[in-house]
């Protein structure tokens, strides 16, 4: 297993140097699902191997956990210290050797570099192995637990924090390739279904939208408190449209899309003849939410159980 990860690490470095950033569409469905199954298979194989050889599992050792956390930390430091392409780009014909090397390694758009993908996959594999092993021992423990015995809150806190983190990172990372994110300009002229995806792609939506009305609420001091648009929404061009109000920061959900009111013609203000919408479809959204909710509960439980442990030790 150590060798496998060493080879994969070197491979990610070579791929980065030769091909540059990861093409995002490469990990779209079903590749992301296959990657997930492969990851789980590695975990299972590691467990079987350790049982057969009667040796401790490689992926669940303390050094594997520390290595996975440190790897993730180093990756994050690259993201934190090197300005990312979204916010900054180096001057053309940059002479500085350090900047050139960092550029070749993908440090300036690190979230789409092969090295970052490797770091995350390694982290997810080690975390999955730890959850699997702890889960098995928990099941054993439950089998021997007699009725009426109290729930072990520490085990529950471990499960919520680790499994929640794994689900959230996995859904965010593997699900990002399946995400549809596009912008749309609608006006009062009629209903359309064409949105624009980065960099220059058109995206046809499975529904039609148009603008019915637009309104801005001002504070007596003249500052904007809120703005909202009344949209026409229809399943097809022929069907009868229904009106729905869309407020800034209060997205609407329609046919698996989250629709956000992004902006309007700021020069014309309330008389704006169009509004810009942001439309997002995240197929892995529910998984992400469940991971985050598990982590919220895990953090609360960690706070409470550790305080209880402190009191028990004192008494």
């Amino acid at each position, binding site marked *: 297993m150590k060798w496998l990860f060493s080879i994969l690490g070197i491979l990610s470095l070579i791929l980065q140097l030769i091909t540059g950033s990861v093409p995002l569409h490469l990990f779209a469905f079903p590749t992301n699902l296959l990657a997930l199954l492969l990851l789980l298979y590695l975990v299972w194989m590691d467990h079987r191997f350790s049982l057969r050889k009667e040796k401790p599992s490689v992926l669940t050792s303390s050094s594997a956990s520390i290595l996975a956390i440190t790897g993730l930390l180093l990756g994050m430091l690259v993201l934190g210290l090197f*300005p*990312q392409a979204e916010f900054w780009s180096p001057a053309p014909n940059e002479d500085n050797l350090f900047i050139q090397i960092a550029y070749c390694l993908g440090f300036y758009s690190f979230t789409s570099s092969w090295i970052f993908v490797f770091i995350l996959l390694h982290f997810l594999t080690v975390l999955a192995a730890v959850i699997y092993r702890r889960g098995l021992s928990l099941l054993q423990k439950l089998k021997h637990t007699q009725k009426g015995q109290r729930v072990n809150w520490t085990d529950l806190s471990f499960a919520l924090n680790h499994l929640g983190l794994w689900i959230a990172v996995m859904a965010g990372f593997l699900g990002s390739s399946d995400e549809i994110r596009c912008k749309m300009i609608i006006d009062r002229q009629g209903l359309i279904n064409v949105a624009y995806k980065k960099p220059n792609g058109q995206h046809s939506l499975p529904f039609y939208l148009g603008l019915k009305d637009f309104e801005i609420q001002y504070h007596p001091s003249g500052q*904007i408190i809120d703005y909202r648009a009344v949209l026409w929404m229809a399943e097809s061009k022929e069907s009868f449209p229904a009106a729905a109000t869309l407020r800034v920061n209060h997205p609407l959900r329609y046919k698996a899309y989250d629709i956000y009111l992004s902006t309007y013609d700021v020069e014309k203000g309330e008389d704006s003849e169009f509004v810009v919408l942001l439309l997002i479809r995240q197929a892995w959204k529910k998984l992400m939410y469940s991971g985050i909710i598990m982590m919220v509960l895990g953090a609360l439980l960690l706070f409470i159980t550790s305080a209880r442990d402190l009191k028990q030790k004192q008494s």
Partner: protein
Amino acid sequence: MNWNHFGIVALVSAVCWILAALFALLKAKNQALQSEAISRKALLCSVAGIVIISVYIISFWQYLERPPLKTIGETRLWYALFMGVAGLITYVLWRFPWILSFSALMSIVFMMVNLFKPEIHNQVLMPALQSPWFIPHVTVYIFSYALLGCSFLLALAALFKPALNVDRAIWHLVIAGISCFSLGMLFGALWAKEAWGNYWSWDPKETWAAITWIVYILYIHLIRFRYRNKKIVYLVLIFAFVALQMCWYGLNYLPAAQQSIHVYGS
């Protein structure tokens, strides 16, 4: 009640919280830091402060006929309230005798800003900040900074004076602090999804929050795995605190982060 009544409300709740902080410290001193028992008087004063400011907020809500969440001054009221609540919960659960002093100080600062800068009463929050997530997101973060800051001071002391027996105190401070820090990050993720469509967008502030979080997670795992080199453990904690400063305000000075949605006032 409206802003005209805020002065007296702020004064009474501040007195309650200062008394609560003093009672907690006195109790700890009398017990010679042995049993760390809870002071009932501190509890009573703390709850009284919370009730007073809560009643004011409810009555102000009725006066405005909308939730008081639209202006900067109105959000400061909630900060003051939640600082008091977070301090009380942490005192009851963890029994850190100094925590009520910190929460009282922070609440009083927020109330003083409202008293001495009345112009912010009408300064409208930009629409993106008018979210129910804004107040819990900020207050749990500020609270975690206090707990993690104390763990840093103890780690620094232990690094130069290895004879000091502070490891258990550091551990409990980090666990309480990182729980709050995690909640701050997760509330932020839920809010970001609601307002901007993404849970996480690798904004520089988010990245530095993730770095801080991971360093504390590294510390927790080193302790859980019984790592023996204490100097390294203390250095990890010091590094974690440096990352926390970067996340909190250091970012404003990072040229790479000037486009961050979290860099304010530039």
